[in-house]
């Protein structure tokens, strides 16, 4: 009798365990995803497939492993050159908001195009039957650089800058084709592929809210780091001049970078993005990231100066080893004026700087066109360039 009771308990515990496991990892049904597009949206969702998307319980959180295949249609009268979708599992949760931006689009009125969302988001666990994921439209960029959307993620600036880079790089390739014919264009594409292949890999980590006592700081870095001055790359036609800047460098950590900038133009600037390149002990350089002026209140009047800074700590490693930072170099990567116009470095600025050629990846458009060459051959590349 005792043995029978014991067996029953074991079976019950096993069933409960299986039930718990099943509840922890479940497919994401189509009713769990809500597409919230405004009534006057220039795009419409034609098809949505949740595919192998899953929701996985991790303690008190739910991880959404998304693999959504969408087909969208341009229902406006303009050609669409970029779309950003905002993917929200929870508005006010860290790791609860993501986005997918598809640059390099050239979608005419009435035409359909695919978008694939492959990402992970977090949200607190909930028991109600409400959708766990909302897909919103953050913005659509048209051929004439006009924009539609709530722009919560600043996708207007991001897509405009990307479109300007695309126009710049298509123009450069067209010039190459005009001057040197097919062999010159092929050579240019090979150079893009080689640059992409040779790109030094660096892993970055952004740490927020790190608070160290003096004892903790000394334990991690006995010399407490050093204040390293930024070196600057200057672009003659740039609207922003970098005056001075520094970051506290301790081994592979760069803390609280700060750069003073001057607006050389006659227009007010509302956003400046500074690229920074790290050089290690062995003289290898890596593109570390961007220091944007993300403060919504940032404003740089014409001919004025301001400081771009962050309190965050950034850590870098390469091939699994911490990077020993010796030198930091900054350059202006992007500028947005108060009137919505965007400046990006010219092709000439980029090509005349060996350091940038070494560390900056090919633009999204260069990568798209090189991939087209690899997948569909030279005629497809020529056809694509002729479309613009």
């Amino acid at each position, binding site marked *: 009798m005792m043995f029978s009771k014991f067996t029953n308990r074991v079976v019950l515990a096993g069933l409960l365990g299986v039930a718990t496991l099943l509840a922890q990892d479940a497919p994401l049904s189509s009713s769990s995803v809500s597409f919230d597009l405004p009534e006057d949206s220039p795009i419409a969702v034609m098809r949505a497939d949740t595919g192998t998307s899953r929701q996985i319980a*991790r*303690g008190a959180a739910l*991880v959404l492993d998304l693999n959504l*295949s969408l087909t969208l249609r341009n229902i406006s009268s303009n050609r669409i050159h970029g779309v950003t979708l905002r993917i929200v599992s929870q*508005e006010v*949760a*860290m*790791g609860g*908001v*993501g*986005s*997918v*931006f*598809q*640059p*390099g*689009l050239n979608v005419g009125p009435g035409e359909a195009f*695919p*978008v*694939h*969302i*492959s*990402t*992970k*988001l*977090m949200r607190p666990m909930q028991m109600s039957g409400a959708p766990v994921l909302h897909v919103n439209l953050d913005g659509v960029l048209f051929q004439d650089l006009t924009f539609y959307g709530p722009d*919560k*993620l600043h996708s207007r600036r991001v897509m405009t800058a990307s479109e300007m880079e695309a126009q710049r790089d298509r123009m450069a390739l067209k010039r190459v084709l005009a001057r040197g014919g097919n062999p010159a264009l092929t050579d240019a594409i090979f150079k893009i592929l080689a640059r*992409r292949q040779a*790109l030094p890999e660096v*892993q*970055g*980590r*952004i*740490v*927020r*809210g*790190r*608070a*160290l*006592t003096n*004892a*903790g700081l000394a*334990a991690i870095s006995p010399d407490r780091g050093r204040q390293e001055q930024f070196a600057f790359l200057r672009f003659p036609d740039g609207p922003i001049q970098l005056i001075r800047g520094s970051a506290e460098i301790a081994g592979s950590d760069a803390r609280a*970078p700060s750069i003073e900038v001057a607006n050389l133009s006659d227009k007010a600037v509302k956003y400046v993005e500074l690229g920074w390149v790290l050089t290690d002990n062995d003289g290898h350089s890596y593109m*570390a*990231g*961007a*220091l*944007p002026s*993300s403060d919504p209140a940032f404003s740089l009047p014409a001919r004025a100066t301001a400081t771009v800074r*962050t309190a*965050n700590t950034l850590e870098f490693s390469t091939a699994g080893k911490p990077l020993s930072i010796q030198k930091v170099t900054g350059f202006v990567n992007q500028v947005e004026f108060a009137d919505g116009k965007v400046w990006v470095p010219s092709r000439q600025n980029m090509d005349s700087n060996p350091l940038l050629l070494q560390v900056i*990846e090919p633009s*999204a*458009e260069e*990568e*798209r066109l090189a*991939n087209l060459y690899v*997948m569909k051959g030279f005629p497809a590349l020529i056809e694509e360039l002729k479309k613009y």
Partner: protein
Amino acid sequence: MRHPNQAILALHAGGDLGPFRSWLTARHLARCADCREEVAGYTEMRELLPELAELPEISWNRMAAEIKANVRLGLEAGECVRTADMPLPRASMTGWRAAVAIASVVVMVGGCLMLERPAPQPVHVAAETSVESTQDGVQFQAGDDRAFGLMNGAQKAVYHLDAQGSMGSRYIDRETGAVTIATVSYDVQ
């Protein structure tokens, strides 16, 4: 096998058991490696205790001397204020008086220990959040909690680190063949 309890083993280690109990325990120890190990531990601890008493940082000796001096001072003060015809109190260290006295000594010793010990210094306050690019995508970590994978890893993805707290990944999507830029942020949008 039935094992002697911890108290028996501790008393045995100090040679404080009666002859019969000691014989029984020794007999058990001859067959039980676990209990032998336990007794060896107690023996080691006994050997260590006199050394601990001499450790300069703890100042047990100074503390004991101060307590003794305070007790003597109290007794002498009592002698001074006591009148000759006052009847001597009965045995005073009994009942609630004993309890109060013991409690006072415990509080005093505890207080001394607290004052003697240096204040704990927080070495590293790890209430931080981070996002990190890895080969498998982007990893998000809040405080000391476990990390969560955000954004799936893609072949030949280029990661973009934004110093203000977001990370993006650019890749050729396998399904659509299109250049795709996915971004996650741990800022509340």
